[in-house]
């Protein structure tokens, strides 16, 4: 059997996914990013590096994560069969640790002695702090002040893990501002510092590298769904902040064109308002944080503040590979509002006994629209990319509970 590989040729050697991607960074960082690229190319296929990744993935993170048939939700939606890829069961509670593990191992290999990262929901910060504790590296996490407030449990977790959380008080005090500050740190500490970007954004090779560390999700799903159903799913759904859990789920299925792929952006208070975080549905092409992609911005090219109830999706950009996949029509990008996500959150708790993070609650809200329109012998796989413990205070507030 010959497998056509149409969708696996990206990016080119300068990190371009079609017209998107690239390296739009200050010259001070160019030598570092080029060096990182060289090291990554070398390590990517290195036996020992891959042995370490699979060792920790299995024994520390707990991979493979289960593929679970969500029977009660399936009955409730009365349409397609719904499976959850349970990456919320990973150590630290989200998919983020797949990437943090890979990058911190790479940093260690490169002889870097100081790790920095940005975080929104705090899951990437917790994951990075965790791996830094494991591998004995000092860790500094930039986090917007309003995210520190709405994700306070994760702030304390990072501190317990020995990381220093640096509050960012500029701009909207969310993920974008944390990323700005992390970049400033990186430009200033080029000699010893490794910047662990938490999603498929940033300059080349980050979007490719983070994807490669996350694509295990889809690789496992393929094996698991074939074992369970003896066929590929008909649709896959994932939430999108920068797009790492989504590309992780989709990547191994890009060439299986019978599988429809849906990326769910945060629609906040509605994509017709100016309070949302749907860069593809409501943004324009532009350049931010090292790559050319889609951005929320005004007519003068100033970046707009994103808004979402979910700190992990509250980002005005999106990874360049998603911009590319939209441009060629391989993935459909849709938006889900705060309110829809909140109802899906509660539905999932009650019907499945799973408290999802607000991020995958967006994916589930879209599933609730999609599943009823599909046939009962069709299959949807949704990435349950994070658990909701971090969100309970925030959700309580929105639902009017005091805890």
């Amino acid at each position: 059997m010959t497998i056509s590989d149409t969708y696996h040729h990206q990016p080119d050697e300068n990190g371009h996914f079609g017209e998107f991607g690239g390296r739009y960074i200050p010259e001070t960082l160019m030598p570092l990013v080029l060096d990182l690229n060289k090291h990554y190319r070398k390590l990517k296929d290195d036996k020992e590096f891959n042995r370490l990744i699979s060792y920790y993935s299995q024994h520390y993170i707990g991979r493979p994560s289960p593929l679970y048939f969500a029977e009660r939700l399936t009955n409730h939606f009365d349409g397609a069969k719904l499976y959850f890829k349970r990456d919320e069961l990973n150590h630290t509670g989200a998919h983020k640790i797949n990437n943090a593990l890979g990058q911190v191992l790479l940093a260690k290999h490169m002889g870097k002695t100081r790790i920095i990262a940005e975080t929104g929901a705090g899951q990437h910060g917790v994951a990075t702090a965790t791996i830094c504790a494991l591998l004995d590296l000092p860790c500094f996490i930039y986090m917007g002040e309003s995210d520190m407030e709405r994700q306070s449990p994760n702030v304390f977790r990072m501190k317990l893990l020995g990381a220093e959380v640096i509050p960012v008080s500029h701009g909207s005090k969310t993920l974008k501002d944390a990323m700005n500050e992390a970049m400033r740190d990186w430009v200033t500490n080029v000699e010893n510092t490794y910047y662990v970007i938490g999603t498929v954004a940033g300059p080349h090779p980050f979007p490719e590298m983070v994807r490669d560390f996350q694509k295990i999700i889809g690789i496992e799903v393929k094996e698991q769904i074939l074992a369970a159903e003896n066929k590929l799913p008909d649709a896959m759904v994932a939430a999108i902040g920068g797009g790492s859990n989504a590309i992780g789920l989709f990547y191994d299925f890009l060439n299986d064109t019978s599988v429809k792929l849906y990326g769910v952006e945060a629609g906040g208070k509605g994509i017709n308002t100016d309070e949302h975080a749907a860069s593809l549905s409501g943004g324009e092409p532009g350049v931010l944080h090292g790559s050319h992609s889609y951005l929320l911005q005004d007519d003068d090219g100033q970046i707009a503040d994103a808004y979402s109830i979910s700190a992990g999706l509250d980002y005005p950009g999106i990874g360049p590979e998603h911009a590319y996949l939209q441009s060629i029509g391989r993935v459909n990008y849709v938006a889900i509002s705060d309110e829809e996500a909140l109802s899906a959150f509660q539905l999932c708790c009650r019907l499945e006994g799973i408290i999802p993070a607000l991020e995958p609650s967006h994916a589930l809200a879209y599933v609730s629209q999609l599943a009823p329109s599909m046939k009962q012998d069709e299959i949807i796989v949704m990435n349950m990319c994070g658990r909701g413990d971090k969100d309970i205070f925030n959700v309580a507030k929105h639902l009017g509970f005091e805890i």
Partner: protein
Amino acid sequence: MTNRIDNTFSVLKEKNRKALITFVTVGDPSIEDTHKIMNLLVDAGVDIIELGIPFSDPIADGTTIQSASQRALANGTTLKSILSLVTRFRKNNKHTPIVLMGYYNPVFRHGIESFCSDATNAGVDGLIIVDLPPEEDSLLRTIANKDDLHLVRLVTPTTDEERLSIILDGATGFLYYVSINGITGMQVIDEKTIEERINFLRQKTDLPIAVGFGIKSSEDVRMIQKYADAAVVGSALVKKIEEIGEFHKEGELFNFVRDLSETHVP
């Protein structure tokens, strides 16, 4: 017509003088103030004016320029209003080179072709785009050069020989040496490093070399001018503008800049 940047450097060279370049964020505290400040800078002896295009997410800037950019954006400064400021400035000043410095997204959003022709028509002479390394600048560079705009390339302490040849390939106008690994507004590094780096660059290029980042005082300017063709003062001036808030002809800001430029004396 020769480009004003080329002109300025060759005239200065004949006089055996070094250039003082100053950076201000346009629209801080207002566009009208920037106009006054530009005239003041020229009167005080500044050779080249860098105009900062404010951007919402200036990842290469420290707090001083970040805040200035925010103030400028808050009072409605746009790329259009910046270009119209240059047009007005040019009515009375035909010789002082103007370099627009900023981040790529506003330029990209404006449309590269129309941005370059609008900038040239307004009287801009060069561009420095902080987050546009040589690997990504060919589109802008080709169009800019056709319009007789220099796209100034940057060199940093992290630049090695191999990288330098990539940067020099296609560099025009002058070379901008960023004196430190870091963001704007930090301390200057030591003289010995500057000397070594400039000597290294001189072996590889005949372009004039400007040094920027961390230059705060007339002593700093004088030290830089011993080695380089130009010293760039940015954050220190932006900070003064913030502190002073009044821009009379012979006032405090004038004296500050005057002091920087007196280092011209050969």
